[in-house]
Structure formats: C-alpha cells, structure tokens
C-alpha cells in the first residue's frame, strides 16, 4: 500500500476557504498536493449529492469547508449548511458510509496555515485508512449490474 496516493476532493466556498487556500499559496506554505479544490459561491450551495458523486468518481477522502459561523458572505448559508451536514453525517453513519473520510471545517480568508493543516491532517488520515475500496467495489458492481440487465 506504500504507493497509495490518496485522492482528496475539497468543496470550498469562494469567500473564505478558497481565499484562505490562496493565502496558503502566497505565504509559500507547503502542503500535500493530493487535494483537488472545487470552488462554490457558498457552503450553502454544496449539495450533499456532490459528496456522493466525488466518492463515486474515485475520491478516497473529501473536505468541505467555508466561512466561520457569522462570517458567511450571504449571512446564513453556512448555518443552513451546518444543519444539513449534521443530518447527512447521521444518515451516512446509519448506512455505513465511512464518514472518517470526510472532513468538515471552517477556514477563513486569513487562515492560510489552518488550510494547510486541514489538508495535511485529512491526507494523513486517508493514507492510514487506505483507498476507499468498499465504495469503489459498490460502484464497479453497479456498472456490471447495468451491463447484465441490458
């Protein structure tokens, strides 16, 4: 498993975490390059279905991040998102989807160092957990089912 490189997808809001990640770069802080960042207007726009699509397309880990509470550019997007994440997490736990692979965080535009930390911690954790084999197997099996049913 030593050659395993975790694939991590990060869903972040434009106004805080994306700017924070920019700051990480301009501050020349080094961090794991395993993360692919996808920018959204706000955490309120990060549909839970997108997280499932990330896993379905081969992600081993996911980061979801936005403005700290009270700092959302749209006032309350992150408060709504927080409730949704709570419910989503509970549902995933109930269905046995591995939520240790998903990091939720608040990273502000000033927290370049925190962003590096969030990514590094997540990547280290996923490295320990290994590739998300059971989910990939489920997806592959489903492709076979479709072929068989045709």
């Amino acid at each position, binding site marked *: 498993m030593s050659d395993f490189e975790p694939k991590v997808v990060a869903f972040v809001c434009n106004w805080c975490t994306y700017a924070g990640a920019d700051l990480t770069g301009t501050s020349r802080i080094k961090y794991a390059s395993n993360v692919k960042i996808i920018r959204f207007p706000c955490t309120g726009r990060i549909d839970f279905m997108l997280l499932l699509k990330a896993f379905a397309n081969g992600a081993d880990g996911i980061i979801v991040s936005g403005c700290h509470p009270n700092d959302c550019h749209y006032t309350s997007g992150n408060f709504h998102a*927080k409730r949704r994440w709570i*419910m989503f997490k509970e*549902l995933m736990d*109930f269905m046995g989807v591995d939520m240790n692979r998903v990091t*939720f*965080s608040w990273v502000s535009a000033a927290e370049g160092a925190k962003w590096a930390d969030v990514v590094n911690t997540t990547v280290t954790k996923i490295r320990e957990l290994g590739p998300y084999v059971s989910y990939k197997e*489920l997806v592959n099996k489903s492709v076979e089912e479709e072929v068989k049913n045709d």
Partner: protein
Amino acid sequence: MTSLIIRAKELLENKTVQVVIGYEAGPTGVARPAFITDPAKAESLIYDERCVQNLAVYLTKREVKNIGKMAIVATLPVMRSIMMLISEQQLFADNIVVLGISADGKLLDIADNKVMQGYIEKSDLSNPEKYKGLLTEFNKLSPEEKFLYWQKELSKCIKCYACRQACPMCYCTRCTVEVNQPQWIPVKANTHGNMEWHILRAMHLAGRCISCGECGRACPVGIPCHLLTMHLTDQVYNYFKVYAGTSEKMSSVLSTYEPNDKESFII
C-alpha cells in the same frame, strides 16, 4: 364505525364538504382508500386495524382537490401530515375538515386546527414502538455490517418510486430523480444508484417525515426504506428537539437554523 358514517353523511348532506376521504373494504376485504361524494355512499366507510394507509397523500392530488372542500379520516400520522402540508403552503386549513381518529379507534371531535394542534401536542410523537426496537438493534451493527445490509436491501430496488408516491411529503411536481440536467440519479436501477436515490429521498425528508411508515409499506420488494427517514426523525429530535408536523407555523429543520446549533465534528 357508525359515528364516523353519521358525521361523514352529515358533512356531505349539508354541503360543508364535497368529498370525504376515508377507507372502505375492497372486494377481497383489504382496506382501500375511498373518496365519497354521495351522502348515500357514506355507509361504506370503515375504520378498523386494516386501515393503515396514510391518506394525507391524496390531499395534494389535483384530481381530489378539484372536487372541492375535503374531509379526511385522520389518525395521528395523518393529522401531522396535514400540519406539515399547511406549514409548507400545500394545503389551506379552511379547505379541510378533519375526522380525527384516536389511538384506540374512536372518532375525535376536531373542531379546528387549534384543537388538532392540542391533540398532536399531547400525543407521543417519537417513532412508533414497533420501529424503535428495529432501529436500536440496527444501530448496534458495525459500519461494515450496515454498509453491506443496505447494499443487499437496495440491490432489490426496482426504482418504481412507490415509496415516494406513498409519502404525503413527497409532493414535488418535479422530483429530483426526474431531473436530467444534470442527471443526479441514474435512470436504471443499480445498487449504487439506488443507494444515491435513497440518500436523496431521506435527506429531503429530514425534519419533515412524520413516521407513518407508508414508504416502507408501499415498497413492492420489502425494502425498509422508512428506517432511513425514521432514523433521521430520531436525530432531528436528538439535535434540535423538534418533531415534524406539530403546528401550522413551524418551519422544517433544514429550512431554518439557530446560530448556536451544536455539533462536534466541524474543525
């Protein structure tokens, strides 16, 4: 149930309502929904242990709504569905008469929505006993066992969407599963796509499900999909201390927030 029949007849005769939604015995003795418009036919109404379907699903159907003002035979889950539908502006309180049925099968005198709210508030709103045990047992499984369990169950799903059709809260004229730009859920049935469909459905019902169990009863292949929404009902109470369908003013949990909502996993 004579008291129910008398009341239904009365409502139709004096034209307070144009249709009474209730149960009647079908040819094989199975209870089926009845839409009574003629006072003379009120005789066929029944209420006994066979009558389990959540009739509130018909309140948002155009074919029924168009008949006129509606009366509905309503057990606790139906009353809670009515509250949800009013709070979501799918139903007008003035357009409906509730023929409430108590837990022991007696006709209640529900004069208006205030009375109904009072009745709901003093009832036990947690998941029905028979599902509670199942949920507790299921929660003891390991994550791997849970994942395998749902894979096995959901591999049977034929995507007939009966679970959605049977649910009073799934009234969307264009359900996300029918949206194809983008195509969120694959059209064909396969285990992974079925799982995505059920996650989507459960999330849409978080804080809106009133634990009637109709989705699970409707499923032709016996998938206990009601456990997903009922688990979220438990969690909604656990985190936010509310149950769905208790007043016509409430907003569902996911359409509102409190600044100090507590969680323990966001870093």
